[in-house]
């Protein structure tokens, strides 16, 4: 019979229309029609979506206790492996005699820049880092008007404490901490 398909389609949209209102859901329930909560929109600036712990955005550098005690030793593996080549490291730092300078028993980078407008959040830098010095952040509200001033993150902007890492990614941070503790022994 011609026309039935059209009417059934209209039925589907009307059911969805009703499902978005509490009274509509009540009506459908009263008629013994299975319902779901119709509204799926997350009203973004007011309500933020609950992201999973593994949600990754741009990388950051982890430090323990004080910012000069950063885990990065400027080995430049991440710079080499970064697919879009957005990491730029100068270092390791040298003292006046040209010998590697050390802080807390480790070499450290002079400059560490990540061009986050080029970064594609692939997480390869985290995978390859032998020192667990770089991790993925979950901050995503980073828009700005200045391409080089705001979109190129330098060392100061990238450094974040281990507490922060433990807060945003508890499971991953726990395994990393366990690994580092095992290494120390």
């Amino acid at each position, binding site marked *: 019979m*011609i026309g039935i398909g*059209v009417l059934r*389609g*209209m039925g589907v*949209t009307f059911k969805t229309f009703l499902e978005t209102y509490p009274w509509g859901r009540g009506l459908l329930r009263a008629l013994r029609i299975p319902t779901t909560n*119709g509204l799926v*929109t997350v009203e973004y600036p007011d309500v933020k979506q609950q992201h999973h712990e593994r949600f990754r955005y741009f990388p950051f550098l982890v430090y323990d206790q004080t910012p000069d005690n950063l885990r990065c030793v400027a080995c430049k593996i991440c710079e080499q492996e970064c697919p879009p080549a957005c990491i730029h490291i100068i270092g390791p730092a040298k003292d006046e005699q040209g010998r590697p300078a050390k802080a807390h028993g480790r070499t450290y980078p002079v400059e560490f820049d990540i061009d986050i407008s080029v970064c594609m959040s692939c997480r390869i830098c985290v995978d390859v880092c032998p020192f667990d010095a770089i991790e993925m952040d979950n901050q995503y509200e980073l828009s700005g008007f200045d391409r080089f001033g705001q979109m190129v993150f330098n060392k100061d902007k990238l450094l974040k404490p281990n507490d922060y890492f433990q807060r945003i990614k508890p499971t991953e941070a726990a395994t990393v901490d366990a690994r580092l503790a095992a290494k120390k022994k």
Partner: protein
Amino acid sequence: MQELDQVFVNAKGWLLSLFPIGLRPWVSIAVSVGVIAAIAPFIMMYLTWLERKIIARMQNRFGPTRVGVYGLLQPISDGIKMLIKEDIVPRGADPLLHILAPILSLAPAILLFAVMPFGRNMIAADLNVGLLYLFAISSISSYSIFMGGWASRSKFSILGAMRGVAQIISYEVPGVLSVVAVIMITGTLSMVGIVEAQADQWFVFTPWGIVGCLMFFLSGVAEVNRTPFDMPEAESELVGGFHTEYSGMKFALWYMAEFLESFAICAFTTTLFLGGWQGPAVPFWVLGLLLAVIVATGTKLPAPIRSVGAAAMLGAAVLWRTQVIPSWAWFLAKTYALVFVLVWLRGTFPRLRVDQLMGLAWKFFLPLGLVNIVAAGIWWSLRETPWFGWIASAVVLALSAWALVLANKPEPLQPRTYIYAD
């Protein structure tokens, strides 16, 4: 209750009484024109809001929520945005026609309001050729669409304009034919006369009336280029069709014309087939009482639904019996119900192809419209025995519709098979 019904009419009468007798006809015209000119943009603005809200809800979304409570100020912010946008005339376009076209499309849309009977005694001009005026005015939009498409000097615009003209001219024929039956039965072209003829029975409750109503409504949808008949705009194919090259306020004028015309189509369908400003002639309050009893005693329903439903039905029955609902409220309620249907169609369907659209008009609606006149004739000549006339005309219509479907051999009737390979 009479006061509420006539509140706008009395207000106008009071306003007129402030002026000397000689000026009153002129003031009366000025007031009517002023009111229409003031409410038309308002109606259009809130139709866009309504459409966005309803379609959003059908798509699991909120729709506009940001500007004002429930996004109620959204149309105003849209209007401001449109006003401050750059007005672009493409190079090589005809600037004069380019600006005239949207104006020419808006003017008839507003003119249609002149013969719209909003309520008892609430019509700007009760022309005795009201229906003729309706069709004469509404056909002007084909000129404006072609003008706009041609003046834009864009291939997409030309294609859209060609489609628009073909479609509007084609759908005018079934549109007029569907109304011929109404003219036959009522013997008048005046809108007020037609509404008053439906005091005993809305025409939609007769076989020829329901067919005519559907045909008039669908042809109207086609004439105002809305989904599923939005061929001239065809966003996915022709970018924007005839208004591809329009921006800013000129674009807004096109939209205003489209929305006002779709409101007009709903209003005139209400007037011609749904009893206009009149409440249901059938003693619906009896039905309401009956429903109240059924709902109250329905054991399958949960208790709150039962009590609320019964109270609502009882209330509705009392309202109907005492006739407190003013005529203009009836008219607006019916019209907005049709507007909801219009939006519902848009939210559900894809559009037809241009040749299928023409086929529908010429191969199905046109013959059915002619049969419908015959059916109305049968119904009228057998009015002494109403049930027999009703059945006879229904049979004629059903048989011819079925024959038309068979004669057109629509491909969707063939079933499809799918094989599974392991």
